[in-house]
């Protein structure tokens, strides 16, 4: 096996083309928006792929979440008790007797059956957003694992408006992604979809059927 490695590398070295690397890369101008335009761009792109975007002031996002859970008749809602929203969610759900919160802190392997077949929806935070393409950026954590945004049929994502960047290029540069990547970084732009049958769009193939985004703004 190490033979394969040295054979491939020595073939490549022997055949290395006599071409210089580009010294001055072509500049591609990056799109820019003001704060209000940024949110509108984000919302427009998200809605074009059938994601729902709801803007809300900080003090009423929980009420909005509960209303959405009721409207969509989500049977139960997976959340991360130790995550950034955990405290607020468990408080808000104290006096509710329907669509209960599900709280699982063990490794997913321990409750995979339930995750796959008995969870109605999951709520997570997002680390950033990208306006240009209408994209959520998640760096799943111990508290909010990767499968939360993947396996349940509905994913509700809570995003701070101030965390929306104009472009992916801007985000990667400003947040210095090259200095340390997480186990898994995810860009999510809409609910799961396919066009594999006659190029006809169908939503909800293997990932969430619905993606709902709550954008918290600091303006009223």
């Amino acid at each position, binding site marked *: 096996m190490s033979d394969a490695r040295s054979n491939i590398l020595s073939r490549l070295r022997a055949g290395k083309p006599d071409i210089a690397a580009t010294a001055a*890369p072509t500049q591609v101008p990056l799109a820019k928006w003001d704060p209000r335009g940024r949110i509108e761009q984000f919302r427009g792109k998200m809605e074009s792929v059938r994601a729902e975007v709801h803007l809300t002031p900080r003090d009423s996002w929980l009420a909005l979440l509960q209303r959405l859970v009721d409207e969509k008749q989500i049977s139960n809602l997976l959340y991360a008790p130790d995550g950034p929203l955990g405290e607020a969610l468990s408080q808000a759900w104290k006096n509710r007797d329907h669509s209960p919160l599900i709280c699982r802190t063990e490794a997913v392997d321990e409750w995979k059956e339930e995750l796959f077949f008995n969870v109605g929806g999951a709520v997570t935070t997002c680390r950033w957003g990208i306006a240009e393409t209408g994209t959520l950026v998640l760096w799943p954590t111990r508290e909010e694992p990767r*499968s939360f945004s993947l396996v349940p049929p509905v994913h509700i994502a809570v995003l701070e408006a101030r965390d929306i960047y104009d472009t992916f290029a801007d985000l990667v540069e400003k947040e210095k992604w090259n200095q340390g990547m997480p186990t898994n970084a995810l860009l999510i732009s809409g609910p799961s979809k396919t066009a*594999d049958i006659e190029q006809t769009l169908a939503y909800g193939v293997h990932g969430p059927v619905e993606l709902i985004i709550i954008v918290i703004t600091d303006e009223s």
Partner: protein
Amino acid sequence: MQQTVEFHDRADRALHNPQIRSNFRYAMDGLMYKRKLSFPDLDELNRLRLRSAEIRANALVNLPELLEQLERRCNENGIQVHWAESVEEANAIVLGIMNRHNAKLLIKGKSMVSEEMELNRYLEQHGIECLESDLGEYILQLAGEPPSHIVAPAIHKSRQQIAQLFKEKFPEIPYTDDVDTLTRNARQILRRKFYDAPVGLSGVNFAVAETGTICLVENEGNGRMCTTVPPVHIAVTGIEKVVEKLSDIPPLLSILPRSATGQHITTYFNMITSPRKPDEKDGPDEVHLVLLDNGRSRIYRDEELIATLRCIRCGACMNHCPVYTRIGGHAYGTTIPGPIGSILEPQKAGLDRHGDLPTASTLCGACGEVCPVRIPIPELLNRLRFERVRQDHTGVTIGQGSQRNPWEARIWKGWSWMHANPAIYRLSIRIATGLRRLLPKRLGAWTRVRSAPRLAAKSLHTLAREKGFDHE
């Protein structure tokens, strides 16, 4: 020569199949239209193509160093890197991992390299079930067919054909040709498989040397399932897919989905940098990266043909190809069809096997014009047409000179001799114009659908001289 006959037969059959003709025409028209809409600003498109071509070309210039850096970073991150010179070696590596885990089911995300390896057939011979989970690939697996397009694999099938297939394979599910219901049925069937599978496999769109990150582009979520749920994840890739820096990714991600399907971005962009860390609650415990050569390091040695390796597999060249649109993907008989397949596959398997593919082009130039990484596909098609008949055995391409026909070679030799001798040239022109009425009206295949060309009474030279042009 065997393959050559097969290609002509398959192309002929496809051309006479109205279903194939209309399915492809409809699909390619849609894809071309959507691509155009997604690049409203031509200046941006041009800059983005230049930038993307630079990124890919620079990565190739430093390929051996970048592969070593990628391996180093992956090892630091806990991803196990394997090297394979041939598809046999790559298959054996995957089988070895499966056996170590005593795994009998492999769930697969879309991977053209695994098609190149014919991994499914290999593993099935060793008693391991492979299950495609991309909807298009799943449909084809049910039908026992290979993909006919690299981005939309089941594009040659109609909704009714797919509905019929589901009815045959799953008689317990009520018949439907409604796309949403078909999709939902596939979701139910495959969900249990994601849950059960001990090992998941994926391809790689980009591998970042700087951070040791594997990037995957997809819409369905099956790629995320295959790389998140099973305890073991194997990614297979060609050695050319590496890029130098993380900052190279945003331009490539901007141009790839727009070129492919006209989407501004795909639903998921999945960046994997390590297996599950000790305190994490999900994700595979093991991640393997298999780096496959299979002829790529040979293509690498030619300063012109190396551009073939820039490809990011968007499929725009086939979407815009008048030949592909008419004969469809299966006629090519290769893993990758269309213009990029016509330059890549003969270089991989040899011009003796796929020597006809470089001629399956009108050289209209559309493929080169839309290529997001500016591969000069028409020039490379032409170059391979030369390679297939040249006899000096100095190039690197396998099967060089294999399509050489001694008669054709003699005719061209005479042709060039005639053009290098003014007296002979003038004499031949005079004879040709003098005897022009003897040219038969039927010229074989050419005149079946066209009228025969007629020679003019006076040559261009004569006409020009009469008009007063002198030699300069």
